[in-house]
């Protein structure tokens, strides 16, 4: 994807380190994400891939190194300053493995909550945006139901729409299809592929290698808190350089 060469960097991680107690979860992570780039992060469980993207919107705190998110020409470095954190979260949407929809609110209220309270958007405008997003993820008829009444695939599509409702510059996906029944994976991936085609900057932690092949600009393989290998998907899958990458790929691509 040569088109990305001229565009600006939106996320910059320098020597990021993180420990859980004595356990070193992230070791010297360096990562640059350009505007519009789609990055797939894979690796065995416990390799720190989820922790890595959760550091970007400060759901987890890193202890050393720096994380800078640049939106609309402004660079914000993550620190303990709540103002900075909130500014970044406004621009970075996140989709979780377990959806995390708010069960006491209707689908529509789930979508409009953040725009109304964080962006102070008038309710009517927020609802219009929400409905257009529900059309995009193909479930406008569910707007007045509660999350518990929807299937897993529908819930995850609502979760994507909810994140998009804030008009974020960057989207983080933390294993978005891992908790889904197999027949529902595709409907969620289709929405994500569509989003990717529209030029959204995406960081996706997933084991869906088909998605990585068709959408990713770069695939990153992590193991034991380190970035072991990264490259364009073609190269990455055809001839992985590192032994650990080969082992991992042979384990998940066994058929």
């Amino acid at each position, binding site marked *: 994807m040569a088109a990305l060469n001229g565009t600006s960097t939106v996320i910059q991680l320098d020597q990021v380190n993180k420990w859980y107690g004595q356990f070193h979860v992230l070791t010297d992570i360096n990562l640059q994400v350009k505007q519009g780039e789609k990055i797939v992060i894979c690796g065995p469980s416990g390799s720190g891939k989820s922790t890595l993207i959760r550091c970007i*919107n*400060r*759901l987890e705190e890193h202890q050393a190194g720096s994380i800078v998110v640049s939106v609309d020409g402004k660079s914000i470095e993550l620190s303990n300053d*709540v103002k900075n954190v*909130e500014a970044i*979260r*406004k621009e*970075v*949407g*996140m989709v*979780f493995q*377990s959806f*995390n*929809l*708010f*069960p*006491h609110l*209707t689908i529509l209220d789930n979508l409009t*909550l*953040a725009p109304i*309270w*964080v962006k102070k958007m008038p309710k009517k405008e927020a609802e219009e945006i929400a409905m257009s997003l529900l059309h995009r993820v193909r479930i406008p008829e569910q707007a007045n*139901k*509660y*999350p*518990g*009444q929807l299937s897993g695939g529908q819930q995850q599509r609502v979760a994507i729409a*909810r*994140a998009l409702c*804030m008009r974020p510059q960057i989207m983080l996906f933390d294993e978005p299809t891992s908790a889904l029944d197999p027949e529902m994976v595709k409907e969620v991936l289709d929405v994500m592929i569509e989003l990717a085609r529209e030029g959204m900057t995406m960081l996706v932690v997933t084991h869906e290698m088909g998605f990585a092949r068709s959408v990713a600009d770069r695939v990153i393989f992590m193991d034991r808190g380190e970035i072991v290998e990264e490259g364009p998907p073609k190269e990455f899958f055809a001839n992985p350089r590192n032994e650990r990458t080969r082992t991992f790929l042979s384990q998940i691509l066994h058929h």
Partner: protein
Amino acid sequence: MSQATEAGPATPRPAALPPVVDAGALGWIRKNLFSSWGNAITTVLLIAFIVWLGSFLLNWAVLKATFSAESGKECVGTGGACWAIIGAKLRYIFFGSFPYDQHWRPLFAIVTMLGMLVLSCDRRMWNAGRLAIIWGIGTVITFMLMFGQIHIPVTLVSAIIFVASLAATLFRRTVADNTERTVYTAVTVLSGIYLILRVLGVLPSYSVPIVLFSYVETGSWGGLAVTMILATYGLAFAFPYGILLALGRRSNLPLIRGLCIGFIELIRGVPLISLLIMASVMLPLFLPSGTSIDKFLRAQVAVILFAGAYIAEIVRGGLQALPKGQFEAADAMGLNYVQRTTLIVLPQALRVVIPPLINTFIGFFKDTSLVLIIGIFDFLKTASQALVDPLWTGFPGEIYLFAAAVYFCFCFSMSRYSKYLEHELNKGTRR
């Protein structure tokens, strides 16, 4: 969603009905009550006992009972209940030693509080503005009726105005237009100047009296109004206070967390009676001589503190039951702490704890009767006091049954409301 099988369009099997097990009332009786000799004998004996007990109660409570009498002597020897004592003592039981000709005042106060409670039970009233109006008006009416007159201290009012306008000046700085800002600033400055002059002693203390009826001090209050005031305002304050304590206990700031834990454990480790006695006997010893805080108010505060600690622990249970993902989703969307707590966390946490919460409310409604220890005449105390009358001695059963029935009405309504609320709030969220 249809699930087609690979085998092709075979005719679908008709849905089988469950086997019939119910064979009518007679079948049920045979199966459950007379399935064996042992069961049959037990059934017959129990039926005989129930009939005997029923006829005894019917005789005592209705057939042989005395419903009106001049004094207790007429009831002696009838072998039935003496309900006449309830009629004779009704006004004392409900209103205590409140001046006799003014009994309509506590009556209307009770009705006002009931109205306030019933209105607040409706979900449509659950926003800050409506609740503030209901409770504001209800409270003024209730205490106007009970006291008969209210003296509003100008200093206190101006202090409240000062704080409110200062807050408005600070928080609406960015959104308000010029006129609005000028008004806020002017009000802040004026009330501030007044307060300074008051503190310096330049201006005398002054209060605006609103006199509608004759003044009745809290010492003369009694009966159901007292129980209801203690319970209603006790829980109305303890509930938000308990929520704050629960949130504080989970705070990341060690000082706040420590204070909340210390307070909760201290209060929970002490019986309510000792707290009440401390409030009534020990507190005045620590206050500078000449100052006095009303005994009723002290008891009310003790009840609030006590209930708050218990409510805090229940709410904490609800907070802990909430999946971590809910907090994370709220954070990831950029909600701040207050928004996250009020929009996401509390609505879900409180829903989970409705049954134990109402359980505590019911417990506290009954626990308010402990204030009789420090000489406050609540409903139970006036009821038992009614027995002291020499004309009517010897009928404690009737009086206490009546008191129990009144308590039961309140507690059972709360219990039903809890059930309704659970159902109502879980509408649609169930699968």
